[in-house]
């Protein structure tokens, strides 16, 4: 399948990427291309310029600091999954990256592309929201809470480039995903993070957009154990229904995945 015509650019740095975007008529940034290229082949997207930011060296890094873990936007899923720093500081995030798609997708897809795309069933948004991460762009810093605004929608302005994602280090965290048997996307995926003073639960693949399951957070803050959720019921009212799962089944799976995520916290 051919995409529509476009002009391809590969800027060497962020400044050049910004200038190319301003000069373009309907420009789009390209990272791993694992969501954008399939969309372009189906003509769901037909940008006139593609600005490839995947080889800008300053966007590819994993840096462990004293109280946070910082990941550059163009860092590939496979590199996050295999990183000793990620495995040591937030093992659940390494595990999450290793569950995305398949090895070939993980070799190209990036964290920045995943959160900018904000697919309702993508894995990273659950971790970014539950871990209370901060998304840095070429313009500002955006708390995860304000970043994911709806189905395939984010707070990003035109021309805004995600540069890095900074994760505060939780005391413990876990991720569990029920993969859609065909696509491997989350159906759903639940990320649980215990910060000692607070418990945060991010849910993806259940509704139109990633969200925090506050009722599960309250139960886990009271007692951080899978059994603490036995009495919880997830309300299906706001959840998605499709040919793979009804809203009621998704609600059931959210609770089961949350319990598995809590169990995964201990290794």
């Amino acid at each position, binding site marked *: *399948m*051919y*995409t*529509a*015509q*476009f*002009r*391809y650019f*590969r800027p060497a740095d962020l400044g050049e990427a910004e200038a190319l975007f301003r000069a373009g008529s309907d420009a789009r940034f*390209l990272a791993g*291309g*694992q969501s954008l*290229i*399939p969309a372009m*082949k*189906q003509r769901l997207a037909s940008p006139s310029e*593609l600005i*490839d930011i*995947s080889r800008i060296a300053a966007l590819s890094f994993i840096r462990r600091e004293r109280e946070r873990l910082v990941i550059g936007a163009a860092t590939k899923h*496979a590199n996050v999954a295999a990183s000793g720093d990620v495995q040591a500081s937030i093992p659940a995030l390494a595990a999450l990256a290793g569950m995305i*798609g*398949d*090895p*070939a*997708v993980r*070799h*190209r897809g990036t964290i920045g592309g995943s959160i900018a795309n904000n697919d309702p069933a993508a894995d990273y948004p659950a971790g970014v929201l539950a871990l209370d991460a901060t998304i840095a762009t070429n313009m500002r810093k955006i708390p995860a809470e304000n970043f994911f605004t709806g189905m395939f929608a984010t707070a990003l302005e035109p021309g805004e480039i995600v540069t890095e994602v900074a994760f505060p280090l939780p005391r413990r965290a876990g991720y569990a995903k029920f993969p859609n048997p065909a*696509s*491997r996307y989350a159906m759903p995926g639940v990320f649980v993070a215990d910060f000692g003073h607070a418990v945060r639960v991010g849910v993806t693949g259940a509704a139109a957009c990633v969200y925090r399951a506050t009722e599960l957070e309250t139960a886990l803050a009271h007692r951080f154990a899978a059994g603490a959720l036995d009495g919880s019921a997830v309300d299906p009212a706001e959840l998605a229904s499709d040919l793979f799962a009804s809203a009621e089944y998704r609600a059931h799976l959210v609770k089961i995945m949350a319990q598995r995520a809590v169990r995964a916290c201990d290794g």
Partner: protein
Amino acid sequence: MAAISLTVNGKPIRAEVEDRTLLVHFLREHLHLTGTHVGCDTSQCGACVVHVNGRAMKSCTMFVAQADGEEIVTVEGLSGEGKLHPVQAAFQEHHALQCGFCTPGMIMTAVDMLKRHPHPDEETIRRELEGNFCRCTGYLNIIKAIGAASRAI
């Protein structure tokens, strides 16, 4: 048009291509390396997997311009001097193909897998094959062949 220069199976290549040329189209239609297949054309099936700088990637989900300056290896580049690569030999030995359509992608994925997991157990092999579909074999002989290749390498 984009001017690109890259290495394919060890050979330096320069070309002028339309910006929208996919890597798989470049390999098949410009270089006539038709071992790399297009199965789904929607990033699902893995028939188009090649190595870019030593890592397995879906060549239907990449523009050749993105591979500018990189090293590509296709299934044609695996065997040397008329000798099959151990993974190819294991596929033959264990009857890991029927129609053969998925085979180039399976083999390129398997070679990449064995680099990262030199001694994979069956569960690892199955997990690593998540992006490669086979409509004929039922996968059992493919899994057997990859296990045997890991012991042969």
